[in-house]
């Protein structure tokens, strides 16, 4: 079974036409991969569907804008995968 990171990386590769080998757990979706907010909506949709969750993008954006969090916490892919695992676990709890 694919890891959460692998699933997310495959979604990004397919959605944004980025070579899969360029996408690593350390990649920052915005700063390293150049994904903009519109493309990220497509990624969020695919992640929501794949994991049966709802990524709280609005909450994350607000936290970053208010200085309560950094973009790295949500958009570095290993961190994003960890957040997804947390949301999946919370759903099953």
């Amino acid at each position, binding site marked *: 079974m694919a890891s959460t990171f692998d699933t997310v990386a495959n979604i990004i590769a397919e959605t944004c036409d980025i070579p899969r080998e360029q996408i690593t757990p350390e990649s920052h979706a915005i700063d390293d991969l150049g994904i903009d907010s*519109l493309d990220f*909506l*497509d990624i*969020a*949709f695919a992640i*929501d*569907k794949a994991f049966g969750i*709802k*990524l*709280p*993008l*609005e*909450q994350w*954006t607000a936290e970053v804008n208010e200085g309560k969090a950094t973009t790295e916490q949500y958009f570095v892919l290993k961190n994003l995968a960890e957040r997804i695992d947390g949301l999946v676990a919370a759903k099953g709890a």
Partner: protein
Amino acid sequence: MRLEYFELVDKIEELNLAEGRILALGNVPAASPVFEGHFPGHPLVPGVLFVEFMAQTSGWLLLGRLNFERMAFLASVKEAKMRNFVQPNTPLLAEARIEHEGSGYGITNCKVTKHDGTPVADATITLRIMPFPSSEFSDAMRARARKVGFTIPA
């Protein structure tokens, strides 16, 4: 429809917010400056206006589900297909169904048909959900909603 003003939904015929479905009517007018250019001597509704009709219909559906507290803006159009020509003076129906509601965006599957069911266009529409930039804009949308037969919550 007032094509020049991009007011494409004339009336909301059916609305089921719980199921996430809407059916909207738009009457293509008999005359419009749009037809002078598209095309001279052979007036046809531009395909981009079918896309806008689907986007506006989807927007009303999302606005309803958002209780008119935030606005929906067109973000992307996928798999848009124009299946038949439409001449002036033709009533059209647009149906939109919620495919997915994410955080800050919504996705709908839409289609436009003639009254006899002839397919005109279809697409998957993504709308970005954002705060109203001003109270005047919010008020204008509510006023427009009443005009098209939307029952605004208190």
